[in-house]
């Protein structure tokens, strides 16, 4: 028999006021996943940047559009999917900026790539983009902590 899915699903509107609540939820999820204290802030920031990019770039700051978050407790990692319902963006166009080019903005993707073990973009079933963020457990796993 297939193992039951272990995770959290939540949908928020594309409104930056909701991101604080998402960070709190992600922090709790990190605890359930068994991630150490030092990793929790990193995962919170990566999810924050992923959602903020959806609001700014995909929905052009339009509020009330849905953002789906799926957090899955894998045995070896916390895997997070951020789904939007906009237009699929070619991953090759989503790039970190050159850090020597000092200017406000453009650091979100760079931070996600630095903070997470995996960052991937793919087309979802609704024609939008799914951002996948993975933070691997250093030892032990969700089973021991859940």
């Amino acid at each position, binding site marked *: 028999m297939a193992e039951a899915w272990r995770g959290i699903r939540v949908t928020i509107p594309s409104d930056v006021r909701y991101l604080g609540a998402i960070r709190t939820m992600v922090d709790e999820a990190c605890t359930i996943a068994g991630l150490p204290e030092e990793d929790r802030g990193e995962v919170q920031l990566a999810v*924050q940047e992923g959602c*903020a990019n959806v609001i700014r770039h995909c929905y052009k700051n339009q509020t009330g559009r849905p953002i789906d978050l799926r957090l899955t407790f894998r045995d070896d990692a916390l895997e997070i999917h951020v789904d939007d319902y906009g237009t699929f963006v070619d991953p090759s166009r989503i790039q970190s900026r050159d*850090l020597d080019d000092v200017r*406000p903005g453009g*650091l979100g993707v760079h*931070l996600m790539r630095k903070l997470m073990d995996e960052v991937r973009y793919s087309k979802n079933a609704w024609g939008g983009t799914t951002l996948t963020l993975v933070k691997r457990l250093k030892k032990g796993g969700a089973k021991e902590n859940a």
Partner: protein
Amino acid sequence: MKVTREKRDTTVLVSVAGSVDIYSSPELRGELKVALEQRAPRIVIDLEKVTFVDSSGLATLIEALQKVHEYQGKLVLCGLRAAVLSVFQLSNLDNLFEIRPDVPAALEG
């Protein structure tokens, strides 16, 4: 987020508490704008009570630094917690900003 601004001689001290993110950073930008419009010779931003900063928060601070440099002023950050400092380091901004351990050290420099 909570922001307060006070003048100490020729320095404007901006104290920030809480999360500096895409939601709250416009408020910080507004407070900094006042100091920048006054062309304060030195702006010290106390981040001791800041628990979280995202790329929008960083962008707000980079923007302020660039504007301060336009009139040959000085902008100093202080009191960064380890988690906040780490975000600066990951973005190579720890070398761009003048960072001091606390307000007295920032006011001395």
